[in-house]
């Protein structure tokens, strides 16, 4: 069995900024330096990988591309610390290391035939992107797809072109927002939980998936409850500090859960049992 | 590089020099073409007051055989007091390191003014000779990360 601590070398095919600022977000499109790795690599939406540079460190990120996107992986990374700063310095042609895929996945098979609502805020859209992409690539298997997304300003919106393209395509019902008024912004102004009430998705035969900052999640969950969603219908991902990614180092535990192994995807019903999950 | 023996041992010394006096003094040694050993490598700081005594520890850990801190003569500090603070800090740190078993010859301090190019040479020579006499600093070195 392969040593799980040894990462694979990847090469950056393309890299671009999604959002500016001190905590800017950069997307990397990468492929394995050794194409043979593709034979053993298979990930599902929601799964994560340890991304890093020897000499700097490693951090866990969700794979922000869907397995239906062939030949590359995508990671959208916000600059927050030492490792992410080093990663942000990289450009197309540069290389870094990836190991994984780790953790569980969104139960997309179980969700077949249902209406799916994704509710994302800021960089929280990164784990939702593969869900949306996967559904769009398997459009007939699912009902309505509603995408609700907001960020602080229009510049902070991740994956801008893709939303435009979705709106144009019409296979997705897209609701966008920014926190404060901006000239020329044609969509909603306000926080994501309000946008959710505005969009008013129906709970029948539906699944809601939400990712974003903790404060947003808190109010989204409240509002989903208002809209009639049951805890079993609501999914989210947890993000704790991780070191090993494979359920050994103990760092990511939230109560009895090893977020890296048992998660990152959890239903709200599950998390309600674990008080530390929202700590 | 080959193993250092006592005879061929060329110590490596990291020096912290204040911009206004000692660094200028070392520059003057250069302009005056005063030759001295090449063992001392300089980190320029604005004032010896900036030099944290823990820098000594880092240098020794990294493999330096000695450390020199040099600044303005008392009363001449460009920032009035920095060298006085440094003097206290290094007096204590040096005694402490000696207490741990680090030869005092490895932790030196000097006052070299901008006009003392020849003193800089003497200081360098004395520090290098002093460290040569006590040999390489191995005990505290970080273990080598052999590839």
């Amino acid at each position, binding site marked *: *069995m392969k*040593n*799980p*601590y*040894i*990462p694979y*070398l990847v090469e950056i095919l393309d890299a671009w900024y999604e959002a500016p600022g001190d905590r800017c977000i950069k997307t990397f499109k990468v492929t394995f*330096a050794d194409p043979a790795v593709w034979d053993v690599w298979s990930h599902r939406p929601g799964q994560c990988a340890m991304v890093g540079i*020897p*000499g*700097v*460190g*490693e951090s866990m990120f969700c794979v922000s591309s869907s397995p239906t996107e062939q030949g590359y992986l995508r990671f959208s990374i916000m600059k*927050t*610390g030492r490792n992410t700063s080093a990663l942000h310095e990289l450009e197309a042609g540069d*290389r870094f*290391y990836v190991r994984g895929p780790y953790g569980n996945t969104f139960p997309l098979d179980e969700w077949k035939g249902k209406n799916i609502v994704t509710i994302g805020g800021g960089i929280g859209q990164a784990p939702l992107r593969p869900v949306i992409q996967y559904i769009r690539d398997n459009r007939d298997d699912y009902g309505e797809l509603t995408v609700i997304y907001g960020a602080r300003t229009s510049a902070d919106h991740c994956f801008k072109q893709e939303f435009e393209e979705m709106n144009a395509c019409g296979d997705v019902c897209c609701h966008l927002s920014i926190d404060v008024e901006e000239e020329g912004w044609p969509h909603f102004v306000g926080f994501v939980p309000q946008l959710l009430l505005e969009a008013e998705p129906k709970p029948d035969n539906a699944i809601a998936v939400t990712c974003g900052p*903790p404060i947003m999640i808190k109010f989204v969950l409240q509002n989903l409850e208002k809209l009639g969603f049951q805890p079993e219908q609501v999914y989210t991902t947890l993000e*704790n*500090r991780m*070191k*090993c990614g*494979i*359920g*050994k*180092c*103990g*760092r990511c*535990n*939230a*109560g*009895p859960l090893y977020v890296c*192994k048992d998660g990152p995807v959890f239903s709200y019903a599950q998390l309600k049992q674990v*008080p*530390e999950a929202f*700590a | 590089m080959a193993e250092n023996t006592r005879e061929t041992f060329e110590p490596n010394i990291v020096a912290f020099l204040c911009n206004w006096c000692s660094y200028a003094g070392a520059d003057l040694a250069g302009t005056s073409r005063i030759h001295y050993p090449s063992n001392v490598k300089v980190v320029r700081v604005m004032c010896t007051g900036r030099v944290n005594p823990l820098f000594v520890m880092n240098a020794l850990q990294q493999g330096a055989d000695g450390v020199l801190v040099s600044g303005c003569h008392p009363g001449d500090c460009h920032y009035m007091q920095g060298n006085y603070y440094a003097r206290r800090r290094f007096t204590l740190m040096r005694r402490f390191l000696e207490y741990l078993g680090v030869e005092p010859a490895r932790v030196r301090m000097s006052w070299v003014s901008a006009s003392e190019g020849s003193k800089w040479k003497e200081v360098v020579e004395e520090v290098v000779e002093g460290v040569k006499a006590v040999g390489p600093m191995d005990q505290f070195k*970080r273990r*080598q*990360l*052999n*590839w």
Partner: protein
Amino acid sequence: MADKILKKDKAAEALKELSKFRLFAPAKSDDVVLFRQIEDPAEACLDYANSTVPPKKVVFPQTETLFRFKLGNPELREKNVEEEGTTVIFGLRPCDARAMSIVDNLFSWDYEDPYYLKRRELTTLVGMACVTPPSVNCFCASVGGEPFGTENLDLLLVDMGEEYLVKVLTDKGGKLAETIGSFMENAPEGAAAKAEELAGAAREALSRSIDTSGIEAKLPALWDSPLWKEVSAACLGCGICTYLCPTCHCFDIQDEVEDAEGRRCRMWDSCMFREYTLHASGHNPRPTRKERTRNRISHKYSYFPGKFGVIACVGCGRCVNLCPVNIDILEILGKVVEA
């Protein structure tokens, strides 16, 4: 293999023989007993209560290289544990041996940890039964252990006064016994019975105990209990209880670089440290020592048993003996039981 006798005056020779392997045995540094690699049998101190630092570090070193790298070179060189060769831990207490089997669950769960497991495979455990409890705070019997426990041991030595009774417990143990066979003789009739007697007495001599049944289920219910604030108030947030715990296994991973060469290594970490859960954003899911203490106890007595079916505590008493402010896990568990 039948039980053997190792006369105490032969023990040094036997150790000398074993030192051809990577031999770890208790040794004294000032008054502190530690497991150290032994070259000279005279260094070993078999007449000890218990080691301050458990022998877990032999199989789970405090700092361990995972792989090495050169900056600018894509190649990563994996640490080869195999090279360390056969390892013997001589004279460890049954609780510490049992602790390793508990930790095995973790390192072999789902992903197998190649470093730990390889080292476990290479290591033979020679136990030393506790004829008298090493400390007043021993409570192994409350958590599934025994002063003469054999779980996970390859050989067990029982101090019979002038000699050690050597019980061979596994094939691995048998092999090791063979290498020192020439220093041993067959155990006389009645030795086993005498050992049984000693075992009984040792069990009797354990002065502390706790009824652990029901704790696993009870702990989650006590999430918001005021008891956590009470028992953690004095906590200093240091790593003594976890670093000296034979079952604690948390680690950090960091890269170290020196002059363009480097290594990725892991090192012990402690859930009692503030930085352990601290996010880069400054948010800390376990913001105070109260939450950290609750997690430590819950992990050992609820989460771990929930996942692996066994309490992650062997009752060695180290955390009680060495806590600078007398935070006492048995007192905490007592409060949990009462609550």
